[in-house]
């Protein structure tokens, strides 16, 4: 069949899609290009330079913000992945669980509510019970809203896995814990890994909640970047942005590759 008469073909879609991908990537490319600009006014190009990278790497406020973000994201990832794993096992594998649907909705609740509402609500809670420590405030809030992102891939993986393996393990006199450790966990690991990765990225990226809950000494990276953008005077900003864009793209690619490989093994 010649393409001219292919009824499923709509004219103009190819060029439109090319434009679409240009639109998706051009803004990020602009940031990367300007990060190599010697001029200290972000938008005016003079010549190629790496000076803003070296000054960004020596910026202690930036390093501290990065440390806070990594600490919060690491703790929140561990907490919410464990919470999500337990919940997924109970919801998918549990026998005669009451309120199964409701329990699942509770785990996914952060996805249903606008983040700004949750953020101010948590702020009021912490000010009422007088929690002043920024890292504790951030860790609790991040653990809560990252849980669905860890839960969904684990749940999908568990649901896609046949019960045969676990039953075979039980037939061979393995107790529940051994079955979980030696059979279930290795099989659902790609789901757990991509869930944890997702939760980590969501936590690192969060601005709305962190902006309201962080305290003077515990600024997270997005909150620090926001203050840099607002003050509008930092030529390092583009270099910082480029490094962060590269880091998240690499992390996301690794997560997607692990998930894809897991799916292939499963098939």
């Amino acid at each position, binding site marked *: 069949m010649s393409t001219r008469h292919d009824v499923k073909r709509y004219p103009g879609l190819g060029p439109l899609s090319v434009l679409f991908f240009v639109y998706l990537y051009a803004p990020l490319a602009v940031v990367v290009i300007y990060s190599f600009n010697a001029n200290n006014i972000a938008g005016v190009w003079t010549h190629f330079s790496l000076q803003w990278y070296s000054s960004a790497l020596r910026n202690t406020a930036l390093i501290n913000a990065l440390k806070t973000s990594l600490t919060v994201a690491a703790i929140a990832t561990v907490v919410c992945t464990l919470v999500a794993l337990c919940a997924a096992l109970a919801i998918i594998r549990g026998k005669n669980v009451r309120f199964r649907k409701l329990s699942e909705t509770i785990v996914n609740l952060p996805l249903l509510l606008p983040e700004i509402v949750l953020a*101010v609500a948590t702020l009021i809670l912490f000010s009422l019970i007088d929690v002043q420590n920024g890292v504790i405030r951030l860790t609790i809030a991040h653990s809560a809203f990252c849980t669905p992102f860890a839960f969904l891939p684990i749940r999908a993986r568990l649901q896609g896995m046949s019960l045969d393996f676990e039953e075979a393990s039980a037939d061979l006199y393995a107790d529940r814990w051994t079955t979980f450790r030696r059979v279930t966990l290795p099989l659902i690991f790609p789901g757990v890994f991509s869930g944890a990765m997702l939760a980590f990225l969501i936590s690192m990226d969060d601005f709305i909640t962190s902006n309201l809950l962080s305290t003077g000494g515990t600024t997270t990276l997005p909150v620090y970047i926001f203050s840099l953008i607002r003050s509008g005077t930092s030529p390092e900003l583009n270099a910082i942005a480029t490094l962060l864009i590269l880091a998240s793209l690499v992390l996301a690619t690794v997560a997607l590759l692990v998930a894809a490989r897991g799916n292939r093994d499963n098939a």
Partner: protein
Amino acid sequence: MTDSVLHATAEAGRAPRVRFWHDPSFWGLLPSRLLMGFALILPIFIIAAVSVATRGAHGGFAWDFNLAGYRQILFNEGWTGELEFTPQYLLIIVRTFLLAGATTLICLLFAVPVAYFISRQPPGRKAALIYLVTLPFWASMILRVYAWMIILGKDGTLPRLLEYLGLPSGMSLMFNDGATLTAMVYTAMPLMVLPVFASIEKLDGTLIEASHDLYGSRWVTLRRVILPLTAPGIVAGAILVFVPSLGAVLEPSLMGGGKQMMMGTLIQLQFGGGRNWPFGAAIAITLMALVMGFLIFAALRAARREAAL
């Protein structure tokens, strides 16, 4: 007497009940219930209570029942206590809806043709293109908004390009609703393309051929066959874009400037040092009610559609 007998027979009919502390699924669900109960459900109840509390003299609030927070959304209280209708906050609510709605429509307009194009590619290229759609989504949200500040801002890429093309120089493309909308569309786009793609992928190609055999033109086929059959994906994408857009904070505060507020920035403003907490809480509850109402409406429509099939 009869009561206990009835009870006993009812019990006998059921499977023997395990005590809850012997039930592994109870312990499995406990951490998520504790975490969500403490960090989510409890705060929502507290903020609902604060929205009907009285504003404190020096910021914060006092536990006295007061509907002033909600009243302030529509009315301004004069010195003598008379109420005057002031639409400024209502306008912010309307703007929030219009911007979120426009974001959803524009995303849809691009997502459907692009998703259709991707679905017609050979498998390897299809996976690669979907990966390329997803990838920018993982770059930090604040940086994706910032990129548009460089493009639209003073001395930015686009104003300079327009100047080069002979348009008046020094045009301000920033700090208006258009700039906010541009950033909102850009940050939300992958959320629309992915569900629409998933739906178009499942579309049975023979139906398109059948439509043409019955002399349906490409346009008729699109309108009467392709779009109705991909409706679930379109609805899912619209929810994924519309709901977070209603709560947008970063886009209006960076692109819209201080004047062009949305509900998210208005709420945030009330919780900055010593402002009006009950008013902020009242707007937050209003936003939550609107989102919940929309989600329930969408769920009911989906249920009805399923029942009709």
